[in-house]
């Protein structure tokens, strides 16, 4: 994998909200097919970091390149870049007035300008990948939390993104529904998807992540292989956080 051009390359990223510095110079590169996990206490800036990657938050400084494109450049069409950056949210954010199929097909029709028929075919394929082809006609309210989150993954997946961002994808789920979402993410990993995941699912991180990053107070404290971070953290802050997680 070494030598490959990173899919995501963040340099010196800074973000402030009204003079409060939330990100203080983040450097991070994610290589093709890599699954990078970000952990850290709440308020450490991990969600903000993720949301800067598709400019849902506007960075204050630094640079972000996705697939070689400077997404902060004035000349960059951010909407065109966003369809190559899939995002999955903690609260799913499915469109309640559309069926699962409609949710997945919307951007295919309106952004990629696919004919409706083809969009539905692609959308159905994406729903199939998350195991929900049979729920295509269901509305979000008729689906369990786990199913809703899988539809949300399909919605991002249908656009064939180069990179997927997961913002605490299982935090809003009942424990028994977490597994189905993680299984889908595992499948994506196996299929070679590049993923940046903010989550506290340690078991999943251990067996699926290539790298774990521990953030605190807007900076990366340490990073390493999952077993290093979880079993032999070097930094005292990381140790304290891991111990807290494991309780």
């Amino acid at each position, binding site marked *: 994998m070494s030598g490959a051009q990173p899919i995501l390359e963040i340099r010196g990223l800074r973000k402030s909200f009204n003079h409060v510095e939330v990100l203080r110079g983040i450097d991070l590169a994610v290589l093709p097919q890599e699954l990078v996990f970000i952990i850290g206490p709440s308020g450490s800036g991990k969600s903000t970091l993720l949301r800067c990657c*598709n400019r*849902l938050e506007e960075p204050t400084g630094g640079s972000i390149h996705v697939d070689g494109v400077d997404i902060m450049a004035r000349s960059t069409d951010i*909407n*065109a*870049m*966003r*369809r190559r*950056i*899939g*995002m999955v*949210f903690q*609260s799913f*954010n*499915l*469109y*309640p*007035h559309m069926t699962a199929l409609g949710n997945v097909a*919307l*951007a295919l029709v*309106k*952004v990629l300008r696919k004919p409706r028929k083809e969009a539905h075919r692609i959308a159905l394929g994406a729903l199939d990948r998350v195991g929900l082809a049979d729920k295509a006609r269901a*509305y*979000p*309210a008729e689906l369990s939390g786990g199913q809703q989150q899988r539809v*949300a993954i399909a*919605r*991002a997946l249908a*656009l064939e993104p180069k990179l997927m961002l997961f913002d605490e994808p299982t935090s809003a789920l009942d424990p028994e529904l977490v597994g189905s979402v993680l299984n889908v993410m595992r499948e994506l990993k196996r299929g070679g998807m590049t993923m940046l995941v903010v989550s506290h699912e340690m078991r999943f991180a251990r067996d699926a992540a290539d790298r774990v990053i521990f953030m605190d107070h807007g900076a990366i404290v340490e990073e390493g292989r999952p077993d290093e971070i979880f079993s032999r953290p070097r930094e005292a802050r990381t140790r304290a956080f891991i111990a807290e997680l494991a309780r």
Partner: protein
Amino acid sequence: MQGSPRFVDVFFNWVLIERYFPAIMKGVAVTIEIAAAVVVTGLALGLILAIVRAFRFLPVSALIVVFADAFRALPPLVLILLVYFGLPNLGVSLPSFAVLWLVLSLVLAAFSEEVFWAGLLSVPKGQWEAARSTGLGFLETLVYVVLPQALRLTVPPITNRTVVITKNTALGTVIGVGEILNQATTAQSFSGNATPLMMGAITYVILFIPVVVLGRFLETRFAWRRL
């Protein structure tokens, strides 16, 4: 029981009912015409203003707020008289029908803009973010994701407000618009009997009850379980 025939004679005089029925029906046609025109232009303008406000361009938003507040604060009757008797002094004289339509449209636009705006605000931020994250632009997100949800939420208050404003077509009587109340008061003064007024009242009930029922139907039809 002695008062009973007199009561019937004053309010339900059959001869007068027959005589003034055509006039009242003419009023019904005028009322429906104005009400329909007001609903179309008022709601369309209100929606457009709410959408413009969604762009959050401060000076424009401020103007919209000033307009909405002014037209919600002023009694429609004051506006009608002001426009009808004031504008000719500026060399613009509109027919009474047009004045009534214009004023009520603006009043409905002011109220509905506020309701539509509240509806837009009530759609969770996550809906915007999810849509934008798939590459949809601001306007596409507004049209395909946010507005459909916002509009459903606004159906009950919009229906109520629309009924209130369209009932105000009766104010047209003071500037001589030949709507229901105008026909009824004219007939009343000719006959010296309250029967035409009662006919007008009953006509309003017949006209507006279906609208109220329709509003209730829409309310349940467009409600859906959230999340």
